[in-house]
């Protein structure tokens, strides 16, 4: 039975399933990456609509578009969705698509674990959003969704204060999503450390791979802490434990510590992949190597370590005391140093380069500019007395959107425009892309710069409405207009994708004349990625196979054909028979389905729990016992 798929050689159809089943059963990192990206983008639209609802409610004083209850549910789901269901999985989508290609591997280390990770993520995200329907009739505006903020501060989340099922969905949904993140983190670290092509030493790896490695380590160390905090909340809510029960001596502050010990590394989990993307885009479009590669890499590693020592800057106003506040204030100032190093390296990469003004470069430059503003506003929070003024105001809201939208999402859009041709074979339209960029940049600044002003004027976060005459009307109206302009830019993007998939220019293997290995193979890449595993001789190996330097250091193209012959050789035909790709499998999906069933059981009836356990165990044992590859 081990020979189901036979000996799949190059060009042979390997997958026994077609159409939708080939996606459901896939263990191919590229398909999983695309599914991650598409699913996360759908959640992005959902989170975006939630943002628009919030902005409509705040557009003018004494507005009653959303009731206070609805408002709380909507802003909570907006934050939770954008963090856990959009920015994290978009980063993971890029890691899936790119890591094996960039290090010269045929897949990730554990292809089925990878599929499992995606299905758990998707089902967890759907589970979380089902909460909307649990508050009675949603069409009458009864939203059952959690309404305690994305940070779920105790004791508000305790059953005494949050009576509906919303918080149950929240804590169990994020618990499920954490499993997906952990599985992904383990898989990517093993892939990066173990699956590199010959010659691909650690310091020849592209910066994106490095940043993914740091991100993965942050994931596997941060998620367990959140997991424990969520378990404690679960025991409190479902089994009457006392972890955050003040009357029994419990300390709600413990939640904040646990949450932010996870939460601050999480911030870097969100931004490091974007930094990696930008570090790939800038050299390609500047036609220069990345300036100070080791500095960028070590800065990323430094950020990874330091991110564990700054969590209490989220808690300056909770009364930790002067010593703790000073220590965390100083560590927060320090962590801006490696970030600053990176920004200067990116600027120096562009300096003197022959800038190719294409859409990916626009977004990358937008990233640097917007992220720098976000970073600088972050430095103002690190001064404790200053933070006392800013805490719980719109200044904080402006700051973290500046880094997470202006930073992470601009970086991700740069990545989408850059790698879309690689995975679809079609170029995204550059003119539409630039419209996309400018509309988004203008909308973004119109939305979030007014929030800075509002914050400094003292407008608190999380308020459903505000009275007339506070001087906040103009800035709020402006922010709402900006939000709709951002929505327009997203529509332009969607149109661009649809249009380009249909009528886009055919990309070819290497449309940007880029530097890393994924561009040495056809677009879209074949299932097995590399016909022959490449041998790597230097950093930016693909570039050096295409170009040599003349006496003055200018790149000179190697005569046509030579690059192909060395980089993507079709000789060595005997090796073709050695390519064995992993078998498709349904078991990761089966195992993943067990989790939401158990979660429903915990909320509604313990009798359902064994069903979920049986489903999971069936999936897990089927997975362990089936042959991994046709051999």
């Amino acid at each position, binding site marked *: 039975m081990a020979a189901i798929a036979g000996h799949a050689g190059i060009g042979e159809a390997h997958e026994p399933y077609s159409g939708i089943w080939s996606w459901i059963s896939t263990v191919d990192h590229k398909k999983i990456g695309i599914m991650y990206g598409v699913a996360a983008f759908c959640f992005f639209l959902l989170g975006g609509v939630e943002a628009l609802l919030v902005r409509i409610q705040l557009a003018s004083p004494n507005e009653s578009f959303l009731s206070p209850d609805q408002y709380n549910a909507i802003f909570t789901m907006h934050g939770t969705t954008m963090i856990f269901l959009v920015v994290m999985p978009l980063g993971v989508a890029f890691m899936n698509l790119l890591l094996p290609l960039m290090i010269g591997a045929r897949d990730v280390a*554990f292809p*089925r674990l990878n599929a499992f990770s995606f299905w758990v993520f998707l089902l967890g995200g759907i589970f979380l959003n089902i909460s909307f329907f649990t508050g009675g009739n949603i069409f009458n505006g009864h939203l059952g969704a959690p309404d305690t903020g994305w940070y779920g501060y105790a004791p508000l989340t305790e059953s005494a204060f949050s009576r509906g099922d919303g918080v149950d969905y929240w804590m169990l949904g994020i618990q499920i999503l954490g499993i997906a993140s952990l599985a992904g983190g*383990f898989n990517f*670290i093993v892939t990066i450390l173990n699956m590199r092509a010959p010659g691909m030493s650690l310091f020849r790896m592209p910066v994106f791979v490095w940043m993914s490695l740091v991100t993965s380590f942050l994931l596997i160390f941060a998620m367990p802490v959140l997991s424990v905090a969520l378990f404690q909340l679960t025991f409190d809510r479902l089994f009457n*434990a006392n972890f955050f029960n003040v009357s029994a001596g419990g*300390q709600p502050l413990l939640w904040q510590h646990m949450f932010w010990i996870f939460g601050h590394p999480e911030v870097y989990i969100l931004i490091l992949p974007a930094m990696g993307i930008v570090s790939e885009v800038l050299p390609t479009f500047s036609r220069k190597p990345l300036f100070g590669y080791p500095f960028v890499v070590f800065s990323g590693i430094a950020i990874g370590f330091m991110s564990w020592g700054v969590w209490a800057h989220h808690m300056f106003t909770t009364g930790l005391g002067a010593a703790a506040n000073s220590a965390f204030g100083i560590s927060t100032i320090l962590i801006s140093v490696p970030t600053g190093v990176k920004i200067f390296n990116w600027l120096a990469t562009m300096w003197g380069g022959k800038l190719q003004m294409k859409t990916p470069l626009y977004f990358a430059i937008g990233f640097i500019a917007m992220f720098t503003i976000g970073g600088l506003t972050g430095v103002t929070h690190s001064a404790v007395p200053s933070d006392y003024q800013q805490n719980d105001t719109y200044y904080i809201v402006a700051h973290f959107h500046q880094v997470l939208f202006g930073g992470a999402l601009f970086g991700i859009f740069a990545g989408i425009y850059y790698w879309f041709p690689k995975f679809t074979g079609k170029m995204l339209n550059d003119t539409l892309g630039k419209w996309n960029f400018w509309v988004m940049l203008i909308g973004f600044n119109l939305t979030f710069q007014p929030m800075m002003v509002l914050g400094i004027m003292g407008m608190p976060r999380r308020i459903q409405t505000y009275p007339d005459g506070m001087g906040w009307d103009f800035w709020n109206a402006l922010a709402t207009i900006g939000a709709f302009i951002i929505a327009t830019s997203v529509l332009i993007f969607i149109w661009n994708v649809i249009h380009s998939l249909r009528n886009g220019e055919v990309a070819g293997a290497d449309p940007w004349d880029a530097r890393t290995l994924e561009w040495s193979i056809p677009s879209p890449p074949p299932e097995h990625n590399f016909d022959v595993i490449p041998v790597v001789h230097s950093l930016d190996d693909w570039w050096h196979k295409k170009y040599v330097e003349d006496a003055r250091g200018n790149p000179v193209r190697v005569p046509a054909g030579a690059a192909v012959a060395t980089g993507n050789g079709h000789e060595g035909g005997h*090796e073709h028979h050695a390519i064995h790709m*992993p078998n498709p499998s349904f078991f990761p999906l089966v195992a993943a389905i067990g989790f939401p069933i158990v979660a429903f059981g915990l909320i509604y009836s313990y009798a359902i729990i064994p069903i979920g356990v049986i489903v999971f165990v069936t999936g897990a044992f089927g997975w362990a016992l089936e042959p*991994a590859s046709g051999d």
Partner: protein
Amino acid sequence: MEYAGPTHELQPMETSTGVDNRKLLMWLFLASDCLFFGALISTYLLYRDRSVVGPFPKDLYDIPFTSVSSFILLMSSVSMVLALAAIQRGDLRRMRVWLVCTAMLGILFLSGQAYEFTEFYNKGLSLHQNLFGSTFFVLTGFHGAHVTVGVILLLSIWVRSMQGKVTQNDTLSVELMGLYWHFVDIVWIIIFTFVYLLTGK
């Protein structure tokens, strides 16, 4: 077809680090699990002596009893080592004996825990009673869950071996089993020390 060997067929070459993918995965999982138990143990220590009502640790702990069950768990690590040594020698029969022995010692430990939980519950300690109850049951309960998973895995390897599906080439499976089992043991040493022996006031 073989026991859970998902990766090495995919690779035309040795891994870049020389460490098997599955072994690296296990080490990473254990590193991650350190943070999991770290958070639980920290919570226990932070909440020690903060319970508003009894029963308190000193009212309940039966140190001689728990010492014996701890000793049983430690001995299971010895039999785990012997199981690995046996398969490395190619002695599959002795490997099966030691695997079952390890699983039985694990089950004995779990029975001790079940007895202890019941005793404590009968003397008034519950998740809801006080902070001690919440932190104690959740911490030791998650440890017990880890031991349970370990026992299931041990018995799975044993069953597969009885079916003749575990051969001398599968040393790694037993080695990974051992890594997990020893880790769970070490966590218990920490729990026994900080939770049972250093009871505070």
